[in-house]
């Protein structure tokens, strides 16, 4: 249905010794914020490998090293898009794309939510507890 919130992955779970990741998503757009040094870029780098596996082929990753970011992201359909360094990468044009390209799901390492159609379920932080890493609601 047009406008319906599509979830490409309701959760992403994998092991990366000594850690096990269990990431559950509650909205089409997830913003991961919180303190610096909580492992966002570490997660991004592991996902670069995970996307090459059969179960996670729909993951598309972007960061400040990505070539032709604007053109590339706009070609994404039915994808789980992850953007690191999003605060310096995304502009109003990309925000509009994120809001209205409903076939994609997004996980953004981003603090500035201005102009994004997010809900209170969108705001998450990474939590490490006993080598288990989860996404928890940002208070």
């Amino acid at each position: 249905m047009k406008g319906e919130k599509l979830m490409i992955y309701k959760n992403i779970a994998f092991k990366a010794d000594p850690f096990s990741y269990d990431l559950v998503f509650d909205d089409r757009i997830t913003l991961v914020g919180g303190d610096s040094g909580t492992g966002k870029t570490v997660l991004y780098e592991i996902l670069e490998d995970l996307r090459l596996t059969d179960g996670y082929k729909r993951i598309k990753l972007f960061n400040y090293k990505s070539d032709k970011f604007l053109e590339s992201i706009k070609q994404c359909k039915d994808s789980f898009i992850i953007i690191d360094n999003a605060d310096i990468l995304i502009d109003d044009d990309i925000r509009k794309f994120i809001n209205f390209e409903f076939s994609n799901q997004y996980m953004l390492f981003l603090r500035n939510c201005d102009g994004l159609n997010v809900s209170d379920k969108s705001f998450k932080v990474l939590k490490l507890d006993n080598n288990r890493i989860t996404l928890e609601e940002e208070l």
Partner: protein
Amino acid sequence: MIDIYTEKKESKDWILQNDLYFNLNTSNEEMSENEINLIQQVDEAKLTPNKHIETKYGLGTIRNLSSGCKTLLNIVKHPDKVVCVEECGPNVLKIIFAMDNIKIYMSRPSLADIPDDAKIRFNDSDVVIGSTGYNTWWSKEYERRETDDL
């Protein structure tokens, strides 16, 4: 005095891409005891003399520090430059606002723990004091942006 700039500018005196600048420049500089302590404080990372780091996520090099930690080191090592702090978490912003004689760029009011006696100058013009002055300035700025339809 902390100088805050709120309009982005492309200049060799500005650092907008902190990871890139750090990886190519700051990471090659000698780290002082104070900077080693900042790395420990922000990323809980132990820096070795040969620039390896040991964190709870594993071993790496200084280029594997978090973007927030790299931003902080860019500021400390290059106080003459205007450094973008939009990727910094609250833990790093708290350290930044406790510093003096630095220049930072932010396009919106990042939530930060600001000391009551912090002296802040916006865009080389308005001088305010502490978190009250900081919040008041941003309130007025948002009114201005709304009026100007920005």
